[in-house]
């Protein structure tokens, strides 16, 4: 150990810490699958923090362990340690470095938040021209709420709105989401479909108008990295683009009563044609009035009744399976 000069040690440790931190940051599989446009943004940000965090962790823990070994009291030594009670440059250094890091992270947060659409909840369509132009490129344009609810505009809406490049534009699809003990009810305002699961087309700009009927719930799709509370008396929204067809859990994240843990359903991300099929089928059903399975008042049910159909997906699954198989 004597032969190796200190700067070389520092350099070696620095390189190793950097490499390990980068590796941990970009090779961990702690996060679930990425299935929305926002998930990529959030994960990059999270992983950058993991890199920085791992580096700090290794340096601090390494120093602690080094001290524990190097500066342990040896047998028979009852003297005190060095009488060092401070070092201004060092203290300035370890105040400044974290300060710079957190300022950087602060700016980065704002950037990511903006890219996610965080600054635009409640943002509504004013220029119909834009929307129509959009509609022609996306086959789903006709699903957009034709009328913007003016009363809604006047009120504050919280949540995640349109991403920067879509600000001021209508979403391709709007779905009203109502949370109640212990279920989510999804209503498609244009077609009148009511369902216990959320169906959306892939790569479409979807807007969820979230509300709560009884207590606070929280709409969360881990694979989308998006969560928004459903608050009685308040309007909230989530706008997202699902990027990967598949079935993902919808989880209630806010304590809402005894069966809060069972308040789970699914979001099914379809290919556009699959989605249109689903839509047609469900519209036909809605007209004949078979959608009532999910419209029953949960207050009339006992807990056991309540949980029984849970997972059966309120009679929708069979249709979905039919679509998936063709």
């Amino acid at each position, binding site marked *: 150990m004597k032969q190796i000069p200190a700067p070389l040690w520092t350099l070696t440790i620095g390189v190793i810490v950097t490499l390990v931190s980068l590796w941990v940051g970009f090779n961990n599989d*702690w*996060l679930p699958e990425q299935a929305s446009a926002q998930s990529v943004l*959030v994960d990059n*940000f*999270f992983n950058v*923090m993991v890199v920085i*965090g791992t580096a*700090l962790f290794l340096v*601090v823990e390494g*120093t*602690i362990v080094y001290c*524990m070994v190097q*500066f*342990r*009291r*040896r047998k028979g*030594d009852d*003297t*005190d*340690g*060095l*009488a*060092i*009670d401070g*070092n201004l440059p060092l203290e300035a250094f*370890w105040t400044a470095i*974290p*300060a710079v890091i*957190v300022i950087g992270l*602060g700016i980065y*947060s*704002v950037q*990511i*938040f903006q890219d996610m659409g*965080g600054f*635009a909840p409640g943002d509504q369509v004013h220029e119909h021209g834009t929307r129509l132009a959009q509609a022609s490129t996306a086959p789903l344009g006709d699903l957009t709420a034709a009328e913007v609810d003016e009363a809604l505009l006047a009120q504050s809406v*919280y949540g995640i709105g349109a991403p920067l490049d879509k600000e001021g534009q209508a979403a391709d699809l709007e779905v009203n989401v109502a949370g109640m003990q212990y279920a989510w009810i999804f209503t498609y305002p244009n077609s009148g479909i009511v369902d216990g699961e959320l169906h959306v087309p892939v790569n479409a700009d979807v807007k969820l108008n979230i509300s709560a009927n009884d*207590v*606070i719930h*929280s709409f969360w799709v*881990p694979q989308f*990295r998006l969560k*928004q*509370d459903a*608050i*009685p*008396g*308040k309007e*909230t929204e989530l706008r997202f683009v699902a990027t990967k067809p598949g079935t993902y*859990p919808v*989880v209630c*994240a*806010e*304590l*809402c*009563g*005894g069966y*809060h*843990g*069972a308040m789970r359903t699914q979001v099914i991300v379809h290919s556009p044609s699959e989605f249109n099929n689903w839509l047609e089928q469900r519209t036909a059903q809605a007209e004949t009035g078979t959608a009532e399975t999910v419209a029953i008042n949960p207050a009339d049910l006992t807990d056991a009744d309540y949980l029984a159909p849970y997972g059966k997906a309120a009679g929708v699954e069979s249709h979905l399976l039919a679509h998936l198989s063709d």
Partner: protein
Amino acid sequence: MAQANITGEMIGNSFPHPDKWKWYHYFTFNVDHKVIGIQYLVSAFFFYLVGGAMALVMRAELATPSSDLVDPNFYNALLTNHGTIMIFLWIVPGAIGGFGNYLVPLMIGARDMAFPKLNALAFWITVPAGLLIVGSFFFGGAQSGWTSYPPLSLITANTAQSMWILAIVCAGTSSILGALNFIITIWKMRVPSMGWNDMPLFCWAILATSLLALFSTPVLAAGLVLLLFDINFGTSFFRPENGGDVVMYQHLFWFYSHPAVYLMILPIFGIMSEVIPVHARKPIFGYKAIAYSSLTICIIGLFVWVHHMFTSGTPPWMRMFFTVSTLIVAVPTGVKIFSWVATLWGGKIRYTSAMLFAIGLLAMFVFGGLSGVTLGTAPVDIHVHDTYYVVAHFHYVLFGGSVFGIYAGLYHWFPKITGRMLNEPLGKVHFILTFIGTNLTFLPMHELGLKGMPRRVAMYDPQFQYINIICTIGAFVLGLSILPFLINAIWSWSNGPKASGNPWNAKTLEWTTDSPPIIENWDVLPVMTEGPYAYGEEPAEVSS
């Protein structure tokens, strides 16, 4: 001298007392700060066992994905009261009421607190708080989480919820009275030879904590009283169907409860700053930085509360403002951590049980701080809010931090408090089990949260069972870890080897009196001849 006289008059003359307290004095309205300190510590530890037992039932329930051990509503009562007990009946009264009362007068060379009767009153107000919590179980127990968000708290178990509110109001009142007392005591009653910057850092920490409690607790009390009115007297502050605003409650709640997390850690930081220098045989590194960073944390800490509400009804600017303010809190917190590590550097570390818990705390708190930073940024928090990731974070700082700190303090001051030494080998077994248990229980929870498991659930997606089993095993290791401590403490209290006045050869004033101290602490008040952390130094250098 004038300051010392105030103390002498207050207790020496107006409260005649026997030469020594008998056991039954500890069950009475006693005004001696040391008796009150012990009352707080013992009753808090009792509630720690109660809260811990609740946690074990919850972890047993969570060993399987379905709700098959207890009724899910009872599960919610357990989780609500586990949190409430650990915060309001264990960490806050243990760290502030227990160590604060016992140590502050001894550390500043006072004979008692400024207002001894008020002090006793503050303790006895926590007794109805405990009884109300225990009693609420006869009415199903409050079930809406320690956060008690309306409307859920308005429609669930009304009687129990009301009792819960009254309990918190009692605990809050107690902490306001205690805070006032600490501020005046520290401000006015230091021995004349002790300037502000000669004061032990524990006292700085208690001062900062008390200021924080004084500003924030009334807001919580107000919020809860409004909730109580809504439940019982037909008002609609938080009833949305009548135009009430549920998000307003969250602001009132978190305006207190974010600072409350600092109420639970600042006194612990104070304990760290006492324990580490003594057992590392080195002066504390960066005294002023540590002292003033406590104050900085308090001030910034009053402006970060919305980070608990990033997914609630909060506008974009609020989400961003509080992201930045939260990130800033990490800086003074980091300063403390680095200062303690630097205190170890170049020391002659003695691996006493107290020191092991202090170093264990350091190691785990770093981790909790780092996960805190990730939670502080709205984009990531939107994903992990209300998940097991948050549970993991706050147990790293509260179990790995506060509980480890209380243990460090107990091992360090047990000889002073009881006059007996604890058994060191048992202490080490206790440490090792606790350290393993803590990490086994709470480390895997980070992944649970990130992968999609929400918190406060009695039933969960079966894909998470494997990790949950690990957590449950860890929890039972933690349950087991209490045993060596209990055996040690109970046995040593009466049979341990007698402790000298200063068994650790420490420099703060509490070690200048007997162990346990006589009733008025000293026959002749001590004079500071050297700094509180003058290790490895000549006394002369300090006074200059």
